[in-house]
């Protein structure tokens, strides 16, 4: 009988938990109210089934528990009952499936006037792109990706000249306007999920995936990666700002187009060593862990690094001069900056390569020149 009492407690506790639990859906911020309805419908239907089947089982356990001299009935089957149960179950399944597929149909077909926005995943951050005035994204190619062109746009494609690339910044969206997300990735599979928007989709390298939603209230949200993408998966996140249409338009108008960025880069006067250093930093994988724009990554940023005071993990401070930086490249674990993991492997560069890298790092300062969008001010 103890079993029966415990089972009753389990059923009642489950139902009560569902009703009073403080953990539930976040406040909705998109048009996918219908997904919430489907979720609640599923809870209701399955909840009824759960309670009914459990109640029947508990009743059977009480009524037919073993007592002295009791014998069980011999009933191999009961075809009528079985067909009834089969029919009822099918009805319940259809009741869940039919509205579900109707909502899904809505999810599959984005509205025609949806605004296209691209989100681009890389280990472990997001970048974004707006198609600009022509409403079309320019061609991309993974091989064109560099620190100057983090999304790999093809500069020769006219459609890409008016694209607006937002590297390492929040995603901004206008409220009450349908958005068709175009998702890409440069390395591994990532996921794009804003809990308040409900809808999500993976970002798969080598292809473009899509989904749509309409933000319905302004505010600040977080996008998180939902597909395991390596050691820092749990930290892959970004801000999403939903703003009034006017504010959004004003913000977007201030951005430089990709074409302008490229033109600015071409005019850039650059020391031969600095250019070589930047190429080395790209090709040798430095930029996987370090940034040139001041944002935090696996390793310390290079912006304003040269000449700064660095606090080490033993509490002492050193000045990041040429010797220090050289040493940090060839023997990185000798001195670890406070707050960063000792994750960097030792690099074996030629002396002139080290000089080039050093020249590049030294050039990364925002003292006199403002940084461009993708952070390689010089």
């Amino acid at each position, binding site marked *: 009988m103890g*079993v029966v009492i415990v089972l009753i407690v389990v059923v009642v506790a*489950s139902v009560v938990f569902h009703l009073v639990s403080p953990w539930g859906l976040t406040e909705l911020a998109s048009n996918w109210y219908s997904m919430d309805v489907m979720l609640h419908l599923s809870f209701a239907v399955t909840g009824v089934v759960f309670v009914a089947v459990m109640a029947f089982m508990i009743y059977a356990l009480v009524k037919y528990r*073993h007592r002295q001299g009791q014998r069980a*009935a011999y009933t191999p089957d009961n075809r009528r009952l079985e067909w009834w149960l089969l029919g009822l179950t099918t009805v319940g399944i259809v009741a869940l499936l039919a509205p579900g597929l109707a909502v899904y149909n809505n999810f599959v077909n984005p509205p025609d006037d949806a605004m296209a926005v691209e989100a681009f995943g890389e280990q472990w951050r997001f970048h974004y792109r707006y198609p600009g005035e022509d409403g079309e994204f320019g061609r991309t190619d993974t091989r064109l990706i560099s620190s100057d062109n983090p999304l790999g746009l093809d500069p020769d494609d006219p459609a890409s000249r008016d694209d607006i690339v937002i590297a390492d910044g929040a995603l901004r969206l206008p409220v009450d306007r349908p958005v068709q997300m175009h998702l890409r990735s440069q390395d591994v599979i990532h996921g794009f999920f804003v809990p308040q928007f409900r809808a999500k989709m993976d970002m798969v390298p080598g292809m473009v*995936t899509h989904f749509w939603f309409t933000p319905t209230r302004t505010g600040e949200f977080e996008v998180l990666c939902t597909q395991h993408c390596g050691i820092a998966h749990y930290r892959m996140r970004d801000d999403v700002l939903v703003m009034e249409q006017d504010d959004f338009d004003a913000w977007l108008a201030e951005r430089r187009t990709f074409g302008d960025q490229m033109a600015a880069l071409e005019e850039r006067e650059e020391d031969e060593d600095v250019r070589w250093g930047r190429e080395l930093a790209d090709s040798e994988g*430095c930029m996987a862990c370090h940034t040139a724009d001041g944002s935090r990554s696996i390793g310390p940023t290079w912006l304003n690094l040269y000449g700064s005071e660095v606090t080490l993990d033993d509490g002492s401070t050193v000045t990041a001069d040429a010797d220090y930086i050289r040493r940090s490249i060839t023997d990185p674990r000798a001195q670890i900056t406070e707050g960063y993991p000792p994750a960097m492997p030792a690099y074996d560069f030629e002396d002139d390569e080290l000089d080039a890298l050093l020249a590049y790092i030294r050039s990364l300062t925002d003292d006199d020149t403002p940084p461009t969008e993708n952070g390689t001010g010089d």
Partner: protein
Amino acid sequence: MAYSASADSHAHHEPQSFVRKYIWSQDHKVIAIQYAVTAIGVGLVALVLSGLMRIQLGFPDSGLIDAEAYYQFMTMHGMIMVVYLLTALFLGGFGNYLIPLMVGARDMVFPYLNMLSYWFYLLSVLVLMASFFVPDGPTGAGWTLYPPQAITGGTPGADWGILTMLVSLAIFIVAATMGGLNYVVTVLQARAPGMTLMRMPLTVWGIFVAAIMALLAFPALFVAAVMMILDSTLGTSFFMPAIIAMGQQMDHEGGSPLLFQHLFWFFGHPEVYIVALPAFGLVSDLISTHARKNIFGYHMMVWAIVIIGFLSFFVWAHHMYVSGMNLSFGYFFAISTLIIAVPTAIKVYNWVLTLWKGDIHFTVPMLFAIGFIVTFIVGGLTGLFLGNVVVDIPLADTYFVVAHFHMVMGVAPILVVFGAIYHWYPKVTGRMMDERLGHIHFWITFLGTYAIYFPMHYLGVLGMPRRYYDYDYDFIPQSAHDLNTFITVVALAVGVAQVLFLWNMAWSAVRGRSSGGNPWNATSLEWQTPETPPGHGNWGPELPEVHRWAYDYNVPGAPQDFIPQTEPRPTSAPGHGHREDAT
């Protein structure tokens, strides 16, 4: 093929040496125990890993393990539990022990192959464990091993770890294929006289169908593993598109990461049922025996097993609703997935209806069976959420998924494993397990796992993504972190409580009450062996003859409340037994 029967009659002797009898044994019972002990051993490793992960999740400031270790443990925990524990235990352990005994065979039809199967399995386990000791440790790619992530530098163990994992899986598949061949052919070919297919206990049906599914599904994993090995070592581009990983342009071009996912889940979804179907079968027999009543709707149960097995090959992409595959596939897979819920629901009804008008003994196996029904109902119903594509979209890759599959293919089958061990232990050792310890073990395990996984669904509804090392996010309230701490505490308690079970198994083997041959008064063949534990060859000189199905409990007019399958039918007693089958 007529051969002289006397030619070898002088060779009547038991194998003498210890090594021959217990190590290089070809006896299905010894192999079953080898399989079970190895599987439980490796399962304990996975249990400890999950405890370490839970400590990180419940107490993120403890700093006990770093992110790298977290992902590695997560991967190993998942893979071990699904493949190396559950699959191996149900097929290699229970399948090996019970199939020949339940169908009335002397052994598996290919005993030597059976032995090889175990040794390959052991080798695969050793290779897997070796990955803890290779440079950079085991892979941290998650048990789904999705490329490109699994073989690029941002993931722990992307060189040696993933290779040892894939090689180990390939060896495991060879072992499972050898075993599966044996189980299938033994059921088809070596049944005792009178044992028609429709007289077999549901345990045999469950394992039989699962073995066929394993034969068909594992090659998908094998192909995927071979292709990934080639991608990572020889630079082919089956799954690898042109990518820049960790700042390096990689020499791949045009491969398709989704192709891997299709192959993986073509294996992965049937795999769920490879674990579930044997559990369905075993639990049916537990319920029937301990409720002293025939299983309700035997034919329906058999057909449900077969239909579930068949349909499970057409639902794989419900794991990929948000993977970026063509969205129109979602309609088909949502429908096929929810269709599978119908035969599954039938099984639940029939278990409950078996209890109806029964004579229910609350023995330890029965308690575990009841625990299974409760857990399975919850896990099955939440499956309706995730199968219904539009409900899955917000819930995919959140803790709702984690809670769902732990309920339905973690806890539910494990409860059956425990129940089945308490049930068949007397046959294996000739001794009963301790009842009181069993009760304590049951209550801690059942209530504990329920308290872990039921609330966890709500963390998923909240939107907490799975596979996160910590959860420093604005939308997650402090109370959710507190719930996580609670879950960790319960999980650790449940984990530690398994010591009770291990102790009970060890202690009872030596000191347990002697059980006799048929302590539960059960009808099926394995309880009718001349010796307990069954001797070499199981049946003595004469094979048993089967006259009825395996569920003749409380037959009206019978003197006892059970009639063994070997009992001949009285020539004129229509009430006895229930139907003739001509299979």
